[in-house]
């Protein structure tokens, strides 16, 4: 299966800090395997128009601590299912970050930013650079561990493990 796209362009949908997983996809909707069901309800309490407004390829932009709360993988799945191509934020909650990478949804930490709703973004995944084409500002992503880069490039953990059968050996202690 293909590797992740190297660069993507999309419109920014901007939200604030501490968006928890109960708001991304309430628990009552998570008891399903149906991705369309998740897409139908993603972010509905925070923004009832979200799933109508998002076009495939758009970018969800957040502030601090996006995805805090539960471990539900349904949260990044719902975001991906509705068409979001990447999530950009100041930083992410831990489990959400891992889950997004594992399902092949790029998540990019850029620290404090000034991206506004509706701006056009160019996300260079290979080099970890987010360009706000509407303002000209560029943001550099924090580097993620190599194993995460490998998983994302494989298109997610299922692809990675199907391909390799196991984790490729991590360098002992010399990768930080």
């Amino acid at each position, binding site marked *: 299966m293909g590797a992740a796209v190297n660069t993507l362009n999309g419109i920014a949908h901007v939200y604030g800090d*501490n968006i*928890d997983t*109960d*708001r991304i996809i*309430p*628990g*009552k909707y*998570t*008891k*399903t*395997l149906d991705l369309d069901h998740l897409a139908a309800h993603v972010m509905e*309490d925070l923004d009832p128009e979200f799933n109508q407004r998002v076009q495939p390829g758009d970018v969800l932009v957040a502030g*601090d*601590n996006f995805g*805090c*709360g*539960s*471990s*539900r*993988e*349904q949260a990044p*799945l719902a975001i991906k299912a509705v068409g979001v191509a990447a999530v950009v934020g100041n*930083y992410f*909650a*831990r*489990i959400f970050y*891992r*889950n997004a990478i*594992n*399902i092949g949804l790029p998540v990019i930490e850029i620290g404090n930013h000034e991206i506004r709703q509706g701006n056009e973004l160019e996300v260079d995944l290979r080099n970890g650079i987010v360009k706000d084409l509407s303002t000209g500002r560029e943001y550099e992503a924090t580097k993620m*561990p*190599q*194993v995460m880069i490998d998983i994302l490039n494989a298109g*997610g*953990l*299922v692809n990675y*493990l*199907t391909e390799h059968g*196991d*984790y490729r*050996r*991590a*360098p*002992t*202690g010399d*990768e*930080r």
Partner: protein
Amino acid sequence: MAQTIAEKILSRRAGHPVSAGDISIVPVDGAMATDATAPFAIKAFEEMGGRQLWDANRVSLVIDHAAPAPNERIGNLHKLMRDFHHRMGGHFYDVGEGICHQLMVEKRHVQPGEIFVGADSHTPTYGALGAFAVGVGSTDLAAVLLTGKIWLKVPKTIRIEFEGRIPKGTTAKDLILFLVGQLSISGATYKALEFAGPALRELTLASRMTIANMAAEMGAKSGFVDPTGLQLPYDYTPIYADVGAAYDATHRFDVSQITPQIAIPHSPDRVRSINEVLGQRIDQAFIGSCTNARLEDLHMAAQLLRGKRIHPRVRLIIAPASKQVFNAGLEDGTIQVLSDAGATFITSGCGPCVGTHQGVPGDGDVVISSANRNFRGRMGNPRASVYLGSPAVVAASALRGEITNPMDILGEDNVEWELR
């Protein structure tokens, strides 16, 4: 080299020294998923080509988030889990056995010094007995089922020292709520927490679980309660942090004056002294969740409600943490006391904590809950408000119909609560 608890456990299991910041691939000693996370994990496992579990004896599946199934869609997800278990083996806890985290500890699926991976964010609960216990999502869990390993970044640790003596009327839940209020919901993101200090030394395992449980609410990867004073029903080797270990930060709090604490809507870190919210009307009271539904929590509630009736406006819903807890409560009369006071008992499971069923509040309803999260919509209705507190606060508030300090009901000299 001086090490934190996290560094020690990961070094031992990795087979060579690791320190904070290192990426390590480690063997997993135990794994668990619930009905909220197992269906996607099973799907991913099969897509990865999984044909058998790496070690069935180390795997547990639990039905607790929607137990019993409230509709046919969920009934079929439960069936999927049962079918998987029949093919693969492993441990299976069906409807009514209890909440996943309670069961992992009760049934000894996790031991001090082990690495445990759970597809549930409150997996850090087992740091109460000194396990490196980390919450993950479904696909990570599937990878563990397949390989028996996980990759982890060794976390930095924040050390918390609770000094002084916990005053009467204040519980472990109040301590951890206080801490969440101090550090915030992102205060320990990607880090481990160590909870230590003289105030914790006499705490029971149940109370330590309450504390470690809410490490998740500060964004932590795992939480450890210093094992000084910890009694387990088996011999174990306690793991202490080394003197001189490097911490990201150390915070000291004197708990001698600490009042009961309340997290007000709509975030677990909006923590106030109960004195600031006394009198807040409540409509529903919930004693349950992996945070606080053990026998000692039911005992606290029973002491406040013995011989009395809850406020006519209030429904008090209680979900004991496990069948074992429920049976112990039946035997020692606690359940009778609470039932006579007007409480209604539901299946041992997550119940209303996660908003799927069994106590979804109506528009404008105010809930006082012994659970761990009160984000808007958490209990299933974004137009309701949830306050978090100890089981004693929940019971006292159910009695009066408004947020009430349990000490106002009992008076300082009457507190019999076994926190020891």
